[in-house]
């Protein structure tokens, strides 16, 4: 009971700080602009215009990625691949429940979060699978989304070693998450 309350308080403190950051940033930056005699409204609206241009540049790539990833999920491809991978992953000490999360995490942020919730619901957040899933979700990003949007912004077609480096990162993430949970929790 006491432990539970402490945990809640810890969590509340973390959330409060992150709630404070954004409003404080907006107020602070605008105030700093006024003090340095910047036309903050004109600059802000000019920035919005540039932002719209960015969206215009990256939308086609984003669109293609979102649609094809959704199609891939609907085809049952992720489940089938997970089933194929499970024995291999299990032998390496990786919780088989997290296989689908591992596959989907690089492609879809919302899809990964949905699967993560399933893992927490079915196994409990403090189970081995729940902990490994939490660490994976907390220490990785939506790799393919980032790659497609960032390179679309500069219209780069030849991405050279970017994919290899990013995927190596994802692999290391899966391995170190498993090892860290086993060693520390």
């Amino acid at each position, binding site marked *: 009971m006491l432990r*539970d309350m402490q945990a*809640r308080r*810890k*969590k509340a403190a*973390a*959330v409060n700080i992150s709630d404070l*950051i954004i409003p404080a*940033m907006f107020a602070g930056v605008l105030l*700093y*602009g006024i003090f*340095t005699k*910047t036309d903050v409204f004109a600059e*802000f609206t000019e*920035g*919005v215009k*540039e*932002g719209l241009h960015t*969206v215009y540049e*990256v939308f086609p790539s984003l*669109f293609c990625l*979102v*649609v094809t990833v*959704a*199609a*891939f*999920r*609907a*085809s*049952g491809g992720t489940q*089938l691949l997970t089933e194929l991978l499970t024995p291999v992953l299990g032998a390496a000490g990786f919780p088989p429940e997290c296989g689908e999360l591992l596959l989907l995490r690089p492609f879809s942020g919302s899809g990964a979060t949905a699967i993560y919730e399933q893992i927490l619901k079915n196994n*409990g957040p403090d189970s081995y699978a*729940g902990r490994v899933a*939490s*660490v994976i979700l*907390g*220490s*990785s990003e939506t*790799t393919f989304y*980032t*790659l497609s949007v*960032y*390179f679309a*912004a500069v*219209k*780069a077609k030849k991405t*050279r070693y*970017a994919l290899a*480096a*990013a995927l*190596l*990162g*994802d692999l*290391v*993430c899966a391995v*170190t*998450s498993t090892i*860290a*949970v086993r060693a*520390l*929790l």
Partner: protein
Amino acid sequence: MMKYIMTGLTVTAFLFAALTGRMDALSTAFLEECGGAVQLAITLTGIIALWSGLMRVAQSSGLTEKLAALTAPVLSKLFGGLKRGGKAMQYITLNITANILGLGNASTPFGLAAMREIEAEEHSPDPLAASDNMITLTVMNTASLQLIPTTAAALRLKYGSAEPMEILPCVWISSVCTLAAALICCGICRRAGRRRRL
């Protein structure tokens, strides 16, 4: 790269659907998700407009320059050849700061602005090829720099975890290893590419 990802995903989706008899679901997914993609883009437009506006104010008032001066000793080692205190370095600083603070929404507009400034500063001989600095920045953004994993912690709390934050040390270890592996890989490829050109 994207052409292989797109074709690969679509063809495997077709084969899986044929094998598992889910062709109807696949067909529906194509037609429904094109609308979903537009909805995502509309949300993203709002977020990008918001942060791009604020970023522009911070930039023209000289605030980002000050911030960039603080991070320059570390970041100039990662991003060789970019002007110290230049616009590209300023946006890279904003992008990385936003990532560390967990402002995932803000980090994308900052990162995209940084990409364009790198392009403007470098004058690459091959505009279709991503430069080393562009790749380093992008790869850093495919790894997680976030100090406090708020999404995971909030969901752990929701599903009744006794210690939602107990994952913190593990997340830090895993994040640092992931980032280090990706950056070392970038460094090796960068050096190998330079040797080939000489």
